[in-house]
């Protein structure tokens, strides 16, 4: 593959940059990284979000807010049983209620095409198609009315009866239904290298522990919402999603429509974290109702509905076995990951992934097993697999450091691989060691007393911990067009999504540099399926994938412009599609890396754990916009803190539903829980993708929970292998420190 060169802009930037240091109180950033050779200008400078003013003034419209004439409102009714069949739906009395226009259910809803799905046949799209109820909170009817209040009142009045069947929602690593899933072509579930049992038997030091993580929910601020309407023979949709083109494709297939007959737009999205990556029920039922009623229909999910309809991270139970020489070198690494999926889809949480990437071992085995339960279908949530997997392996490595008497960083340095440990393929770049070194220096790690329980501040025991982080840094095919307008400006069109990350701004910077034009002459239009195929904002692949397409389009446009004397009134447009370029990329392991550090305070008499400071240092390729990059990294780290200490969906085995399915019961970290956080990055040149961008939306969460758990051990001498590290668990476990003030359950 011939990598296209990145254009070298000659125009100096006229727009002043915003100082990174002023952007967020209590945080600092590493010095700006060096740019890819030959480029200068917008990329690498801090920019506030282009749509920031519109968002904070309310001018930006989200999918649930865009006004339409004649708009009708749909409200979903959901199942109250965990498994069974719908016996009856009492639509008649509800149809007589004020304003009610229709009740859609499995007996009257439009038929959908089976087998449709972005990642293979997705049964969660088959809404209102049969009488089967696979879990609590499954959509069983849509009530449409003139006002949202009427729709809601009618949906709540709708009487649905069920023939209930026994259900099973109880997950553990000993569940008899665990099996090796068919990962499909996209996902290896098992890898094996060397003789794991022989190496373990020959190891001087062995760690063998199980680590568990609970159900975790995305809880994006903006609930999923969509408006669907027919206009001039096209199904026009305003949706909240992470990839309008893919959603439009699936929507067309699902409704037996020509792909050109569907248009999906998603201009502003208020957070997603993976939950808006796939088409979700709200959009499907909105399209159904708009078709049946021939008028615009809006459906907005409630917060409680989000806890059963848009995916979540399934609970995991992971057994790690490490075998090492006395000096810490790994002879064996065995990562046995289990999780669950629903009865209708087999989603696989790939928690063993980090163990295929981060450490060298003579024998390396990863296994992935899944059990199908009567629960909603899990889905990818920020750093799927990587986040829960890193909690297990990075906690185990800390236990190995303790057993070998090595500093946790030293242990990791002794197991740094030359090539991909499972694949044997070279890394496109691997700058984990600089992350350790820079992070340790900034955090003050080198002065650390490794013994647990040696530091105290009043009632608080203090400890520090660290963990390594890795996340895949892929690139996917995307297309973009750029029009040189007659007035000297440029319009970029790409079906990218800005889910709050700053993607729109980053792409503007990319385009300005690629076109060698001032930032203010570039306008980037995104999130419209009519702009052609583009990868979704997910997998830490969005910016890298889109930027390549924009760069290619810019190069094509410059070639075109070189041949024309004058730009015509309609402008001059060039398109680019990176499919062939991306398909030609083969044979390397490409990851972002990082080192996470945390200091915690633990009161073992009350069980309270407070994080006092966190520091993350990352190798994330080329950083386009330091301001928003740091926000992404810090956001990920906060989500990791929340995962470590707070987040836990509690499922009721008797009913099969969640007991805490709202934001009062499902705790995410509050402002008061979040300490001073430093996030920065090291130089990480990597031109495997010629833009040099690796993506950093997910790496921030990876490893944080382990760093915090390891710090809790350092404070108390007690290992916490189950998340979240809840105060009742800390209190009950107490401390291994002798003569401690307030020793847990037995005080004074």
């Amino acid at each position, binding site marked *: 593959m011939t990598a296209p060169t990145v254009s070298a802009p000659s125009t100096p930037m006229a727009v002043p940059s915003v100082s990174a240091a002023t952007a967020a109180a209590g945080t600092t950033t590493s010095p700006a990284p060096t740019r890819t050779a030959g480029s200068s200008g917008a990329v690498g400078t801090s920019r506030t979000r282009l749509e920031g003013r519109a968002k904070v003034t309310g001018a930006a419209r989200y999918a649930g807010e865009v006004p339409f004439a004649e708009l009708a409102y749909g409200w979903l009714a959901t199942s109250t049983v965990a498994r069974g069949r719908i016996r009856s739906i009492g639509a008649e009395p509800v149809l007589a209620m004020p304003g009610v226009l229709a009740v859609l259910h499995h007996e009257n809803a439009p038929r959908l095409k089976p087998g449709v799905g972005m990642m293979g046949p997705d049964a969660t799209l088959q809404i209102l198609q049969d009488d089967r109820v696979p879990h609590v909170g499954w959509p069983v009817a849509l009530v449409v009315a003139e006002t949202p209040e009427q729709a*809601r009142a009618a949906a*709540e009045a709708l009487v649905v009866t069920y023939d209930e069947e026994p259900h099973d929602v109880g997950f553990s690593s000993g569940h008899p239904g665990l099996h090796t899933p068919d990962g499909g072509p996209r996902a290896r579930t098992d890898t094996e290298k060397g003789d794991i049992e022989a190496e373990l038997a020959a190891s001087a030091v062995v760690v063998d522990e199980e680590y568990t993580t609970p159900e975790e929910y995305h809880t994006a601020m903006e609930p999923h919402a969509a408006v669907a309407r027919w206009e001039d023979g096209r199904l026009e949709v305003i949706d909240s999603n992470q990839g309008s083109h893919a959603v439009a494709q699936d929507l067309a297939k699902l409704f037996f429509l020509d792909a050109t007959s569907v248009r999906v737009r998603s201009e502003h999205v208020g957070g997603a974290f993976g939950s808006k990556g796939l088409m979700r029920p709200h959009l499907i039922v909105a399209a159904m109702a708009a078709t049946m009623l021939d008028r615009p229909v809006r459906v907005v999910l409630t917060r409680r509905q989000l806890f059963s309809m848009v995916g979540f991270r399934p609970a995991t139970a992971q057994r790690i076995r490490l075998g090492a020489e006395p000096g810490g070198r790994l002879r064996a690494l065995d990562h046995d990951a289990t999780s669950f999926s629903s009865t209708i889809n087999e989603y696989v949480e790939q928690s063993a992934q980090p163990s295929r990437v981060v450490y060298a071992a003579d024998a390396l085995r990863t296994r992935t097993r899944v059990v199908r339960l009567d629960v909603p279908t899990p889905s990818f949530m920020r750093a799927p697999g990587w986040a829960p997997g890193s909690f297990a392996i990075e906690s185990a490595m800390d236990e190995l450091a303790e057993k070998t008497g090595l500093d946790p960083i030293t242990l990791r340095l002794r197991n740094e691989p030359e090539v991909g440990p499972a694949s044997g393929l070279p890394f496109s770049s691997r700058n984990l060691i600089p992350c350790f070194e820079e992070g340790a220096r900034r955090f003050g790690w080198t002065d650390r007393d490794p013994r647990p329980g040696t530091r105290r501040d009043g009632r608080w025991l203090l400890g520090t911990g660290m963990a390594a982080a890795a996340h895949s840094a892929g690139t996917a095919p995307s297309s973009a067009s750029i029009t040189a307008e007659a007035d000297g400006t440029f319009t970029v069109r790409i079906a990218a999504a800005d889910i709050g990350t700053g993607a729109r701004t980053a792409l503007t910077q990319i385009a300005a540099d690629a076109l060698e034009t001032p930032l203010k002459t570039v306008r980037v239009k995104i999130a419209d399926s009519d702009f052609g195929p583009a990868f979704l904002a997910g997998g830490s692949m969005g910016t890298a994938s889109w930027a390549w397409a924009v760069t290619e389009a810019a190069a094509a446009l410059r070639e075109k412009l070189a041949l024309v004397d004058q730009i015509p009134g309609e402008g001059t447009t060039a398109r680019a599609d990176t499919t062939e370029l991306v398909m030609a990329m083969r044979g390397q392991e490409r990851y972002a890396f990082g080192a996470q550090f945390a200091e915690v305070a633990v009161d073992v*008499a009350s069980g309270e754990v407070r994080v006092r400071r966190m520091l993350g240092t990352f190798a994330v390729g080329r950083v386009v916009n330091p301001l928003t990059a740091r926000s992404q990294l810090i956001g990920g780290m906060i989500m990791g803190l929340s995962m470590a200490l707070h987040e836990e969906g509690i499922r009721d085995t*008797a009913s099969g*539903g969640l007991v805490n399915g709202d934001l009062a019961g499902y705790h995410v970290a509050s402002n*008061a*829980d979040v300490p001073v956080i430093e996030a920065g990055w090291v130089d990480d040149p990597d031109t495997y993708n010629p833009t040099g961008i690796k993506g950093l939306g997910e790496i921030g969460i990876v490893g944080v929970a382990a760093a915090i758990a390891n710090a809790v051990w350092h404070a108390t001498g007690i290992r916490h292998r189950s998340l979240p590290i809840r*105060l009742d668990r800390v*209190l009950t476990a107490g401390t291994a420190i002798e003569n401690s003030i307030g020793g847990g359950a037995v005080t*004074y």
Partner: protein
Amino acid sequence: MREFGYMRATDVTEAVSLLATDPEARFLGGGTNLVDLMKTGVENPALLIDVRELPLDRIEVADDGALKIGATVTNSDLAADPEVRRRYPALAQAVLAGASGQLRNMATVGGNLLQRTRCGYFGDTTQPCNKRVPGSGCPALTGEHHNHAILDWSEHCVATHPSDMGVALAAFDAVVSVHTADGPAELPLSEFYLPVGDTPHRETALPPGALITGVTLPAAPVAARSRYRKVRERASYAFANGSIAAALDVEDGTVRDVRLAFGAVASRPWRARKAEQALTGGPATPEAFAAAADAELAAARPLTHNGYKVPLIRNLVVAMLTELTQEDAR
């Protein structure tokens, strides 16, 4: 959500008579709990009588030194009141430990006393709950109950009372003033909440049709040296797993007066009278504090997943009284 009528009362007598016009009428204070419960269908009043504009928003010192707090005083105003902060600091701390700034600006003293449990089963109308639908059962007994009661629960209900403010009021012998069609009346807070028994849906001893008009705190010098501490699953904006209001007066190493109340352990704010009795007149030592806590907690009956609350409360008693003792010595 059911459609409901809304009326605004301008004086207490009118409010009480408006309530009598509809058996399904409810008073509306700040609405920070009632409105949420209406949205989820847990509460379905036909008529709301808004009492926020009643002239009950004052905090005054009575001739006998008691502090009289009007029922519509907001949590924010209560916590900021100089008399409260000086004479009953634990009360101000308790109020500030609850909810968020926005909620405290709306929530009222009267409503705070009447807020409902945050048991997840109570809040989910698809679940059985004896408190919401008498006789339907209590799934928390065998289900999720890691933050449920350890004291004085019954097989009909193991939910806790969520108020922080109520814990401090319980410690300071608060008296609730009410107004009924028969006129004003008073009810000690210790008799305000009913035992769970087999009627968890009946939470208070408020007479039918009564409006809470205020709370009176008797003068209590010991309360000036008081504190509130709340332990919860995040640093802010969560209900307590255990909390304590304590006041202590020590002279020459001997406890002269002590007040103790616990939160998140029972269906009502829990006044720890047994512990107070054990402490009064005895030594102010950590051992004595622990023994007093044990005396109170001897009656605890933890469920499968909330046994940690026993050592939690015990540790809080010892830590809090030790701090107050050290403060006293200075």
